């Protein structure tokens, strides 16, 4: 090919009058391959190519046209081309230039970009499917929470009925204890269902709800002061914490009962740890607690172990129970 063809950035192919490829410039070799030797390896339309060359044969100037390239997908437009008749003596050949394909001087890069675009499309489709699946699972999860809440409510009602129908004081006390524990679980479950987030629930709201329930179940007028930081706790922490707080509050209300009875519940968090403190102004803990109280503390200790926490009790103007436990990264302050 004439050296001046090196200045042409678009693919240029020189054909003999029978369609054999005589020469190609570098962009054309990159585009169509070194081994291309016939129009058949470039264009899909015989008649269109013949018409173009015929038109070119009638003039000295390049003629414009559009041809379907081999391997092009249906959505791709035909390639814009220019054809120029080359006359030498009585012989005629044709130079055909592909227009507007300067970017294809990097065919490997173009192919890679196409491949990446395809991959992005596939990933987007997968992501859309996953998002849809996640939304569906969230609906199912909420439905499950709703049913658990309803079932707990039903169990609570059954337990209350059993307590009311019994004349046995021991049985009544057992039912009341059971009712208290189930109420704690119910409060936590109710809050979990009402929370927008499926990851956890607000500890401050849960403790306030628990305090109200304990108050109403105690059957006596006693002030419970709740001071809790707005922290969102994961579900696997919230339920044991609800039972712990319920147990400690129930004990405190029981022993603080009196004309000036006062119970407080504090929940604070510091770096990586949270502390729940329940305090009353009763007689304080006996050196070796026994009976139902010690049984309740045993439950608290067991639940503390479950959440990796620790229970400390002391007497300081009344009974003071301090539960400290690690607060994972999943827990965070509510906005």
């Amino acid at each position, binding site marked *: 090919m004439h050296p001046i063809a090196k200045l042409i950035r678009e693919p240029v192919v020189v054909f003999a*009058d029978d369609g054999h490829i005589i020469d190609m410039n570098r962009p054309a070799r990159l585009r169509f391959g070194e081994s291309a030797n016939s129009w058949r390896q470039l264009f899909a339309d*015989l008649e269109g190519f013949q018409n173009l060359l015929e*038109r070119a*044969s009638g*003039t000295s*100037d390049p*003629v*414009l046209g559009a041809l379907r390239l081999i391997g092009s997908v249906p959505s791709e437009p035909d390639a814009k081309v220019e054809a120029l008749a080359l*006359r030498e003596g009585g012989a005629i050949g*044709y130079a055909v230039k592909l227009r507007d394909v300067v970017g294809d001087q990097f065919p490997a890069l173009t192919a890679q970009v196409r491949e990446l675009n395809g991959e992005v499309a596939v990933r987007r489709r997968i992501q859309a499917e996953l998002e849809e699946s996640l939304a569906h699972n969230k609906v199912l999860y909420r439905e499950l929470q709703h049913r658990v809440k309803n079932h707990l409510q039903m169990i609570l009602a059954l337990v209350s009925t059993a307590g009311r129908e019994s004349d046995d004081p021991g049985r009544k006390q057992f039912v009341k204890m059971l009712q208290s524990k189930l109420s704690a679980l119910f409060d936590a479950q109710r809050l979990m269902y009402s929370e927008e987030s499926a990851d956890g629930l607000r500890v401050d709201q849960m403790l306030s709800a628990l305090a109200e329930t304990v108050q109403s179940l105690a059957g006596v007028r006693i002030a419970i002061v709740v001071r809790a930081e707005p922290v969102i706790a994961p579900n696997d922490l919230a339920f044991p914490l609800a039972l712990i707080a319920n147990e400690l509050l129930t004990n405190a209300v029981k022993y603080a009962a009196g004309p000036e009875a006062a119970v407080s519940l504090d929940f604070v968090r510091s770096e990586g740890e949270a502390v729940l403190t329940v305090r009353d102004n009763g007689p304080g803990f006996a050196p070796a607690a026994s009976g139902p109280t010690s049984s309740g503390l045993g439950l608290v200790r067991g639940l503390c172990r479950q959440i990796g926490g620790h229970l400390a009790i002391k007497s300081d103007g009344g009974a003071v129970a301090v539960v400290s436990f690690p607060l994972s990264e999943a827990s965070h302050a509510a906005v």
Partner: protein
Amino acid sequence: MSLDHLDIDLERDMFLRTLLRELSGALQDVVGLEEASGYISVVGAAVGKALDEKYRAALAVDRLSAEQVAQVLVDLKQRIKGDFYVAEQREDRIVFASNSCPFGEFVAGRPALCMMTSNVFGHVTGENLGYARVQIDKAIARGDPGCRVTVYLTPNQDGGEAREYFRRVRPELADL
């Protein structure tokens, strides 16, 4: 209510010439004069091919002579109100002149439309005489008072910028 009485300069010929002016103007604005000329050449070549076939069929000849080519080119221009005439005819050239363009005032500022004349003249001459080089010496579209078109009948080493036309050949492509 009929609007026939309104003084609106519109009928089919006027509408088509306006359409052509606007189309060629849009083409010049969008792709530039050179490329617009290329597109109009494609149209001109097709029109030239069709007219050449009509005249040869009407005159019942396989090929027109140089004399007939000059007559045909003048005739076809006059039929479309181009008012062309042969200003000079020699062995190696035919010079055509005109004081009016078939496109009328609509051609002003549309030099790409001159490729219609170049291609029709070139195609008819090239197909019948084997060769033509068409040079637009003057053009109303370029602001000249009239048009002057020289059709050279023999190749010249110093062809300049004039466009050359040849008898077309349809390649027999090997189905490799």
